[in-house]
C-alpha cells in the first residue's frame, strides 16, 4: 500500500490515478454512499433481476441433472469432458486477474491497482464459486463429493495423490479459501468505516460484527499491513500454481493435444488474459453507472489494455509453440490432431479462436483504442469468447480425435449444458450485484492513502 502519487517526472499523456480535488472525507462519502443509501437504484434492481433469473435456471438445470444423471449433457465416450470442464477452466481462469491485481501488483507497488482491486477480488471469489461447482456436479453424485477429500473412512480407502485431479481439489479449495481471506482482510477497515457511518441500528450491528471491533490503532495497522503483505506474497505463487495444476489435468495425460509441456505457463497467461477482459467488462458499466470516473480513471483502462495485450501475446505464443511442437515432434497422433483442428469439423471454432485471441487484440497497440471505452468493452467481450473457445478446442476437440480412428466421435453440447452455463453466469451476476449493494466496491482506506494529504511531512525532530 505504498504511496506513489508524486508528480510524474516526464510529460505524461495519461490521466492521473485519482482525479484531483478529493479529501479523505469526500472519498469516504462517495464510495460509502453507494452502499449506505435507502434508495436502491432501478438499474440495480433490473440487473439483479436478470442475474437472479439466471440463478433460477441454474437451480432447475442442476436439479434435473441430479434427478437424471450426467447423460443429459452431451457427454459421451470418447468425449467424457465437455462444457462442464470447459466452464470450470474458464471460470477459474477469470478469477486469476483478481488475485493478480490484488497480490502481484501490490508487490510491484503499482498504486493504480487500489481503485480496482476490491471488486476484482470479489470477481475472483464469485468466479471460483462458479468454477468449483462444476467438478462437484460433474461427479453425478454430488452428495458423495466429500469422497474427494482424504479422511479416515470405513471403506479404508484413500485418494490417489499421484493424480492431478486430486491436486486440483487441493489447489482450487486452497485458492478459494485464500482469496476469501484476502478479500475479507482487505474489507475490515472499510467495514469499520461503514459501521461508524451507519445511522440505522441494523446496519450498524451487522457492519460492527463484521468489523470485529476495528478501531484503526497504530499497532493494529502495523500487524494488518504485515498480514496483508504476507498474504500477497503467499497468493502470488498460489495463483500461478492453481492454473498450472489445472493445466496438469491435461498435460500429465497422454492425450494428443493435451500432452504438452507448454501448458502451465500458457494456461496461466490465458487465465490472466481472460480475467482482465472480465474486469473490464465489469468495470466499464459500473464506473459509468455509479459515477466513479474520479477513482477508476482512463489510466486504469490504459494499463489494463496493456496487460491484456501482453498476456494475449503470451497466449498467441503458446498456440504457436503448441503447433510447432506437434509438427517438429513428428508424433503422428499429434500431427493428425493439428490437421484436425485446422481443417476438421471444428475448424471454424479454431479460426474464430485465432481471430478472437490473437488478431482482435492487436488493436490494443494503439493508445486511441486503449482510451476508448466502447472499443475496450468490445475487445473484452471478444477475448472472453475467445478464451472460452480455447478451452473448447483443447478439451472436447482433443478427446474427439484420439489414437484410434475407431474411437473417434463428435461432441455436441445439449440444452442442459448451455442452461447450466447460463445459470452460472446468473449466479456470478447475482453475487456481484449483491456485493455492489452491500459492500464498498472500492477500497476506501487504500484510496485515502493515494491522496496527497496522506503524505506525512517530516517536521524537525527535536
Amino acid at each position, binding site marked *: 500500500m505504498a504511496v506513489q502519487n508524486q508528480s510524474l517526472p516526464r510529460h505524461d499523456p495519461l490521466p492521473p490515478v485519482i482525479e484531483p480535488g478529493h479529501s479523505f472525507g469526500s472519498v*469516504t462519502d462517495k464510495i460509502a454512499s453507494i452502499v449506505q443509501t435507502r434508495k436502491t437504484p432501478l438499474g440495480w434492481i433490473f440487473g439483479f433481476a436478470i442475474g437472479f433469473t439466471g440463478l433460477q435456471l441454474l437451480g432447475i438445470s442442476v436439479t434435473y441433472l441430479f434427478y437424471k444423471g450426467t447423460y443429459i449433457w452431451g457427454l459421451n465416450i470418447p468425449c467424457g469432458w465437455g462444457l462442464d470442464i470447459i466452464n470450470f477452466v474458464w471460470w477459474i481462469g477469470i478469477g486469476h486477474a483478481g488475485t493478480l491485481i490484488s497480490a502481484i501488483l501490490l508487490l510491484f507497488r503499482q498504486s493504480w491497482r487500489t481503485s480496482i482491486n476490491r471488486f476484482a477480488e470479489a470477481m475472483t471469489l464469485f468466479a471460483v464459486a462458479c468454477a468449483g461447482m462444476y467438478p462437484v456436479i460433474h461427479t453425478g453424485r454430488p452428495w458423495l463429493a466429500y469422497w474427494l477429500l482424504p479422511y479416515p473412512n470405513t471403506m479404508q480407502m484413500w485418494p490417489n495423490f*499421484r493424480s492431478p485431479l486430486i*491436486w486440483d481439489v487441493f489447489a482450487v479449495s486452497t485458492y478459494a479459501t485464500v482469496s476469501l*481471506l484476502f478479500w475479507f482482510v482487505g474489507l475490515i477497515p472499510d467495514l469499520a468505516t461503514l459501521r461508524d457511518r451507519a445511522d440505522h441500528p441494523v446496519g450498524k450491528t451487522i457492519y460492527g460484527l463484521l468489523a470485529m471491533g476495528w478501531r484503526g490503532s497504530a*499497532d493494529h495497522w502495523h500487524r494488518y499491513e504485515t498480514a496483508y503483505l504476507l*498474504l500477497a506474497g503467499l497468493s502470488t505463487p498460489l495463483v500461478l*500454481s492453481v492454473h498450472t495444476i489445472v493445466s496438469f489435468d491435461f498435460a500429465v495425460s497422454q492425450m494428443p493435444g493435451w500432452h504438452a509441456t507448454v501448458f502451465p505457463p500458457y494456461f496461466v497467461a490465458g487465465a490472466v488474459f481472460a480475467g482482465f477482459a472480465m474486469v473490464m467488462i465489469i468495470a466499464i458499466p459500473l464506473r459509468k453507472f455509479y459515477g466513479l470516473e474520479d477513482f477508476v480513471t482512463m489510466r486504469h483502462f490504459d494499463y489494463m489494455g496493456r496487460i491484456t495485450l501482453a498476456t494475449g501475446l503470451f497466449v498467441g505464443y503458446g498456440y504457436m509453440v503448441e503447433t510447432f511442437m506437434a509438427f517438429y515432434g513428428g508424433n503422428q497422433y499429434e500431427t493428425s490432431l493439428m490437421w484436425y483442428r485446422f481443417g476438421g469439423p471444428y475448424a471454424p471454432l479454431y479460426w474464430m479462436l485465432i481471430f478472437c485471441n490473437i488478431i482482435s487484440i492487436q488493436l490494443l497497440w494503439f493508445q486511441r483504442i486503449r482510451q476508448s471505452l466502447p472499443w475496450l468493452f468490445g475487445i473484452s467481450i471478444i477475448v472472453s469468447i475467445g478464451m472460452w473457445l480455447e478451452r473448447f478446442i483443447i478439451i472436447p476437440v482433443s478427446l474427439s480425435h484420439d489414437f484410434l480412428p475407431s474411437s473417434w466421435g463428435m461432441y455436441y453440447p445439449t440444452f442442459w449444458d448451455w442452461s447450466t452455463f447460463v445459470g452460472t453466469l446468473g449466479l456470478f451476476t447475482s453475487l456481484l450485484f449483491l456485493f455492489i449493494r452491500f459492500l464498498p466496491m472500492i477500497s476506501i482506506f*487504500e484510496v*485515502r492513502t493515494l491522496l496527497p494529504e496522506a503524505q*506525512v511531512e517530516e517536521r524537525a525532530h527535536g
Partner: protein
Amino acid sequence: MSAAHAKTAGDPLVHGLMAEFHSASELVAAASATTRAGYVQYDCYTPFPIEELHEAMPHKRNWLPLLVLMGGIFGGLGGFSLCYWTSVIAYPIIVAGKPLNSWPAFIPITFECTILLASLTAVIGMLGLNGFPMPYHPVFNVPRFAFASRDRFFLCIESTDPKFDLESTWSFLSQLQPMQVSQVDR
C-alpha cells in the same frame, strides 16, 4: 453508551485522555513528542496506515512473520506427511509402475498445504494478536471517535501509563495543539 458515560464520568475509572488531530503530519509530530515526553502506554488511531507513525511510537515486537513462517513449515510438513503416509503406509498401491514414495507427485499438495496453513496463520494470527473480535473498547465512548475511520487522527494516552496524571497529561496534550482533548471513560 450515554448511560455508561453518565455513571463513570469524573470517577477514577478513566481509560485515558484523547487528543484529536486534523492531519497525519500533526499526529506523527504529536506521537514523536509523546514518546519524547516519556509516555509508553499510548496508542494512535488513524483512518489509514501511516508508516512514519509506527517509527515515531515505542517499538513493539511484531510476532506475526514468525508465526506465519511456522504455519507454512507446519503446513508443508503436514501436506507431505499426508501424501506419504496414505500412499506408502495406509494404502500402498502401485500406480503406473511408480514407486510407493513417488515424492515428485506429492509436491503440488505439499505446496498448497504450505500456502493454506501460512495464509490461515497470517489472518488468524493478525486478528488474534490484535485482540479481535473485540465487542467493546473504551475509545468508542468518545463520540468524536467515529471520525477515526474517516478523516481524523487520534492519540490516546492511557491511564495505565506510569506517567499518567489527569491534569498534567491533559495540559501536555493541549500543548500539542490538537483540535480538542477529551476524557475517555472505561
